[in-house]
């Protein structure tokens, strides 16, 4: 591409990215006021409404991802995503970008998510999050118990164990909440690796600073791991949570201090250092 061609392409992607963000905001508002209330009224059963609304959420997010692809903002590839359809699993993922949740929800027909509890005070969004039976990010025991309860009912739950987006160049920090949830519900863990190249929409990177070329997102779904394998007979459960969290850190290619195992750009090959490697289909 010529220099002029490159700068036109760059300007286009800044515009397109901004457009997608605006459409996302307006779309969320519009759908919350129309589609979701209609879906809620379409059935008298709360669990059926939840299912329909979560499916509508998937299609909407699918639309945003396709829009970004068509507009030339991004490309993507998916591996092993059929495993995301199995219910009752704790789906965990690393969190390199702002759109990870959009990408993952677009791939899972029904999944519970933890969302900002502030939304329960938002006049437009409070009802959709209630109808979708999303979980407010309360603290400690209460949050763990709500998450474990939904898994026990056979729903899948999406969690980013880091708690926030990864800061590039900083050690990966893993909260133990995901481990506590999996152990409390005795649910299998389904690890998902997200790779974004070149890095964009990471923490501290404004949306208009688009990368030098359209970013490529790779989603690799690993094999499910029973959480019971982290328990040991006659041992305090708090230790199992630590062991599981260490395993997650190793899975995502960081050692116990959160630093990358190999001094290289984080790649999916790092996961192969862990006994249970993600299957790439």
């Amino acid at each position, binding site marked *: 591409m010529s220099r002029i061609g490159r700068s036109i392409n760059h300007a286009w992607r800044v515009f397109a990215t901004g457009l997608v963000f605006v459409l996302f905001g307006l779309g969320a508002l519009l759908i919350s006021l129309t589609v979701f209330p209609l879906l809620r009224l379409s059935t008298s059963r709360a669990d059926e409404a939840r299912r329909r609304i979560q499916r509508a959420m998937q299609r909407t997010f699918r639309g945003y991802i396709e829009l970004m692809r068509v507009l030339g903002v991004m490309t993507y590839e998916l591996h092993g995503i059929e495993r995301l359809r199995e219910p009752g699993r704790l789906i965990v993922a690393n969190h390199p970008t702002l759109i990870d949740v959009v990408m993952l929800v677009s791939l899972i027909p029904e999944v519970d998510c933890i969302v900002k509890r502030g939304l329960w005070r938002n006049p437009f969004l409070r009802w959709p999050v209630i109808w979708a039976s999303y979980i407010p990010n309360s603290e*400690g025991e209460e949050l763990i118990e709500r998450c474990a309860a939904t898994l026990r009912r056979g729903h899948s739950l999406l969690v980013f164990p880091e708690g926030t987006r990864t800061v590039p160049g900083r050690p990966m920090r893993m909260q*133990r*909440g995901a481990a*506590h949830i999996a152990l409390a519900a005795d649910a299998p863990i389904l690890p998902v690796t997200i790779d974004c190249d070149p890095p964009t929409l990471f923490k501290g990177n404004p949306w208009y600073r688009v990368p030098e070329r359209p970013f490529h997102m790779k989603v690799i779904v690993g094999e499910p791991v029973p959480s019971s394998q982290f328990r040991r007979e006659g041992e*305090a459960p*708090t*230790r199992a*949570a630590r062991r599981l969290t260490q395993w997650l850190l190793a899975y995502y290619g960081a050692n116990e201090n959160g630093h990358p195992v190999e001094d290289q750009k984080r790649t999916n090959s790092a996961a192969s250092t862990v006994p249970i490697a993600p299957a790439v289909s």
Partner: protein
Amino acid sequence: MSVNVKSREEILEYLREVLVELFEVKPEQVVPEANLYEDLDIDSIDAVDLILKLKELTGRKIQPQQFKHVRTINDVIEAIQSVMAESPAA
């Protein structure tokens, strides 16, 4: 269970054993000025397990409110002492 008033040293020693068992901290890390979250990597969920475990020592459950402002090992010792002071030996 006997609820004799225990000295700070006895409580610290007990706490050291419990923290090593529950959270795999190193015994030498358990000093009065150590911060639970920053120095010992004990989070709010761990604290729930810790409170349950401490019941074995105090003979009664420490209320979460009593534990709310606990930041350091020293704070834990004081919380234990105050619980034991309000539940005289039966």
